């Protein structure tokens, strides 16, 4: 991974009475998509809100375009397009009226882009925001976020509640955005199949801590599911796997070093490529009974 990027997060900490975001670090290079994944309550939204400057950090640093979002918030936010998990606009106003209120605040607002995206997303601009379905609210928020030439698009669970067809269209739109090699996308989701399609980097967060932040291809290359008998498990050192599920007759486990597992266990076990879903399930403990 590059050492400098459009977004650099280092040692980010945020303390709540019942939750702590601790030492979160990752880098998003320009022109790439990063997926931020993790179970509910892991700290994804907190991390995104810290990047936006909506929350004040207790420690660590954030650099977006080389700027601190707290000190240079206006400059940073003018270059970020943000879609919140539950888009909030004025319910009694039409989409055109809501868009006009937001557009005034962006010096680089492009009305043609907004109209083009609204048409592509099949949004009826005369409708009141309160009349829209959750999916259409997200589409509208996305159209706004992409209409001011944002260099960094931050999406908090944008595909939850969307139908598969629109999810596919959305992912295509996001991929198109990257064609200019100028825009980067930070995408939080729990639907890992979306990320397998489009993400370049994956950052997994759990209980407020980063489990890993790596290139997706490297994860899919190195991480694997190992299936074998219980007797083979006895010969391995404790914590050899990143996650383990014991059954009555055998085990299924996740390794982050498929090559080493293959060398050590050979043909006595079945080793197959892990999906991001497997990685999340085992590393967050959801699929593990170690």
């Amino acid at each position, binding site marked *: 991974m590059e050492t400098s990027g459009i977004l650099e997060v280092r040692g980010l900490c945020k303390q709540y009475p019942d939750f702590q975001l601790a030492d979160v670090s990752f880098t998003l290079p320009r022109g790439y998509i990063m997926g931020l994944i993790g179970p509910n309550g892991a700290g994804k939204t907190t991390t995104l*809100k810290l990047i936006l400057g*909506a929350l*004040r950090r207790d420690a660590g640093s954030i650099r977006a375009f080389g700027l601190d979002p707290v000190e240079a*918030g206006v400059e940073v936010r003018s270059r970020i397009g943000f879609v919140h998990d539950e888009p*909030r606009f004025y319910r*009694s106003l039409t989409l055109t009226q809501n868009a006009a*209120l937001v557009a005034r605040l*962006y010096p680089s607002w492009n009305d043609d882009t907004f109209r083009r995206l609204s048409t592509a997303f099949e949004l009826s601009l005369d409708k009141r925001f309160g009349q829209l379905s959750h999916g259409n609210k997200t589409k509208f928020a996305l159209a706004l976020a992409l209409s001011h030439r944002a260099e960094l698009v931050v999406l908090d669970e944008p595909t939850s509640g969307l139908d598969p067809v629109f999810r596919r269209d959305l992912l295509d739109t996001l991929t198109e955005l990257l064609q200019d090699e100028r825009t980067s996308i930070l995408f939080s989701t729990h639907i890992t199949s979306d990320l397998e399609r489009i993400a370049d980097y994956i950052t997994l967060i759990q209980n407020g801590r980063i489990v890993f932040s790596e290139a997706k291809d490297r994860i899919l290359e190195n991480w694997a599911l190992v299936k074998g008998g219980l007797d083979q498990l006895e010969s391995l050192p404790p914590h050899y796997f990143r996650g383990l599920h014991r059954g009555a007759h055998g085990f299924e486990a996740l390794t982050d070093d498929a090559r080493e597992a293959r060398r050590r266990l050979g043909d006595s076990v079945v080793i197959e490529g892990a999906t991001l879903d497997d990685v999340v399930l085992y590393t967050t403990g959801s699929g593990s009974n170690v």
Partner: protein
Amino acid sequence: MFSLVWKDVAAAGRLLWIVLAVGAAQLAGMAFLPSTYVLGVLIFSALLAFGSLAIEEYQRTELLWISVPVSRAQIVTARYLTTILGAVVGLAIGWAIANWVARLAPAAAEGPAALLSLEAHVVLLAVLTLAAAVHLPLHFRLGAGRGLMSFVAISLAGLIVVSLATRLILSAKGLPSPTTDPAAWRELAVGWIQWAEPRLALLLTLLVAFSAAMLAISLVLSTRAYETRDI
């Protein structure tokens, strides 16, 4: 800045027109009853002044405005402008309606004549400004719900303290109380009014300057509170 003020006005949408129409009709009906009119125009103006806060909270759009390229200081300043604008517009409408009704029915205008004066409305504006100066820092520090609760608690406590302090001072100085000796109290009040009348311009200027100073201090406190608050 004015884009942020405009979004508050635009957000009110149809509700604003309903409040304006119903409020204006009610004020027209109250224009001949001094105490009712004062209460009515205060509520009407407060609705216009603080209504956008309620709309923002109800629609939970705060995070949207935090995500756009404006500073928190701009958001706070715009909110103060909207509040004062709402109060001024509410009182101006009230004053215009009261005058209009008084002209339509001049015989009935004797009672509330003093209330229809511009000076009386300036006093009401100062009251609303002081209310905003107390309420808005609480709103920006604690959020809409807890901010409003704290404001109501502080206002009630303030009224009780002022009422008790007035009674104690009157009693200590051997002056009549409005409840125990209304006639003597009325005489005393008339005396005060006679003292104040020639100095009205000066007293009004002092009141407006005090309100403006309190609002300026309040703006600084609100900005500091909002800049460090997690949204």
